[in-house]
């Protein structure tokens, strides 16, 4: 006699590991990096260095959280480094002209939003690939910053503004606190709100999202607004930390940010994003650059090593992922 039995459902723990494979592997990688750099130079683990590391990671982290949303919709924003430069320079100019810092801060966040809206409009409503729109932005926006500053660095007069970048609260640098706050908000929005669900849906299958009545184009445009605002916030942090504004700020930041997001396990194909992964990805990028400096590796080699490590990490990550979960490709 044949017995009909139900297939056993797998263990909960196994399911957990499989669905979080990406995040777990970046966590392991981050810890391994920390262990390696500690063994090379034990200054790495000193509280002073760790706090400094957090302070430096903050701008990347802030932008990377917003970039996670952008990439989850299947897009990309290459212009964030240039937005940082423009906002950074504009803020310094206004502060030097004697404007109040709260007014300047709010205006700068709005500037970021407007730039994001402009780019989001072309991506979402004019159907121009995000890569093209934001590549144009990358060039043009830094150009505006150059025109405004004439290429010179602009000193910010001492004042309360600088504490955005230099202050501490309970011994923790304020940029790090801001970064964590942004990450927490991003985590909640992406995972627990209707809007976050719509961001995933648009990235997984934009046509399906449109068919069920999700305002797909508005959702797509909105994520570029968030990345613009986040870049502006990061620019304020950078300006306050350095005490000056410059059109040369944040060159190449877009690459760090995108690397952080992808390292963290957010899919470039869209539809799947993780803020926890992004936080660890951003920390990993900072740990690598900080650790290489402490290891006294020639600065010229740092970029090569960073690039190689990112490629290897993402390669390992996709390998593990391919074996563990066979997620169907988007058709």
């Amino acid at each position: 006699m044949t017995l009909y039995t139900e297939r056993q459902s797998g263990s909960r723990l196994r399911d957990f590991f499989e669905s979080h494979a990406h995040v777990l592997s970046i966590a392991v990688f981050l810890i391994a990096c920390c262990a390696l750099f500690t063994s090379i130079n034990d200054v790495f683990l000193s509280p002073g260095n760790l706090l400094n590391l957090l302070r430096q990671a903050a701008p990347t982290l802030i932008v990377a959280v917003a970039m996670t949303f952008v990439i989850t919709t299947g897009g990309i924003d290459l212009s964030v480094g240039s937005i940082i430069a423009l906002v950074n320079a504009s803020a310094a100019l206004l502060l030097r002209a004697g404007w109040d810092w709260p007014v300047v801060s709010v205006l700068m966040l709005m500037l970021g939003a407007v730039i994001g809206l402009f780019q989001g409009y072309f991506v979402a409503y004019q159907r121009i690939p995000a890569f093209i729109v934001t590549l144009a932005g990358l060039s043009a926006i830094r150009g505006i910053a150059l025109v405004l500053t004439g290429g010179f660095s602009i000193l910010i007069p001492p004042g309360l503004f600088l504490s955005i970048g230099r202050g501490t609260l309970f011994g923790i640098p304020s940029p790090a606190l801001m970064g964590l706050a942004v990450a927490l908000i991003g985590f909640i929005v992406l995972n627990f709100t209707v809007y976050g669900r719509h961001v995933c849906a648009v990235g997984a299958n934009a046509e399906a999202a449109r068919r069920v009545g999700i305002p797909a184009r508005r959702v797509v445009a909105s994520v570029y607004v968030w990345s613009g605002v986040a870049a502006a916030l990061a620019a304020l942090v950078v300006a306050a930390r350095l005490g000056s504004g410059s059109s040369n700020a944040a060159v190449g930041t877009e690459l760090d940010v995108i690397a952080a997001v992808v390292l963290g396990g957010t899919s470039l194909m869209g539809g799947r994003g993780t803020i926890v992964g992004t936080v660890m990805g951003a920390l990993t990028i900072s740990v690598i650059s900080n650790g290489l400096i402490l290891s006294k590796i020639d600065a010229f080699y740092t970029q090569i090593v960073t690039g190689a490590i990112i490629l290897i990490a993402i390669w390992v990550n996709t390998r593990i992922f391919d074996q563990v979960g066979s997620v169907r490709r988007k058709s």
Partner: protein
Amino acid sequence: MRVRGIRKSFGSIEALRGVDLDLWPGECLGLVGDNAAGKSTFTKILAGTYLPDAGTIELDGKEIAYSGPAEARGYGVEMVYQDLSLCDTIDVAGNLYLGREISKGPFLDKAAMQRGAHEMLRKLEIRIPNTALKVAQLSGGQRQSIAIARSAAFDPNVLILDEPTSALAVAEVEAVLALINRLKAKGVAVVLITHRLQDLFRVCDRIAVMYEGTKVAERAIAETNLEDIVRLIVGEGHR
């Protein structure tokens, strides 16, 4: 629902060349035709996914012009798309509630959606062990079942099924046919597109045949048979 003179072109291809159709509550219309006859295009126009180049759609005697699928959904027109239109990276419950998430303020009420999803699937006799699984992890038939459940669960007035049974096993096809009969009894107008002609004779009241972007014939089920329909599909009977 009354549809008149629908035309639609994609570039140089005239996908629909003036199609008329009437749908009555509590009735199932079978829509058949060769591949590329325009069945999917026509039903997507009914569901608001495509906007017609010409033609009118009336609902309960009032002419309506959709601006998009959300509006059609608002009128109670639901559709199961041939490509299923699911989001692979979102779980089963999330897909069932896509576009009408249960929320507390801006927050998703995930527990309520999981419960609701269980209830929906149970009512439709669909066995999916875990509604928290991602849709990408399911079989083709399970995915199709979810698309059907999503369209049927929210009390539609008009339900369009575009080849809903192509990946289903015997028992599941039976369940879909039973579902169609239950919805008919509730007064829903059903449009069923399928290549399984024997199914049409079990649930449909009328069969419309499309050929190269036009409706070439319409038959009440009582006055036709399988051979007749086959002849109409391949384009012999009306020349």
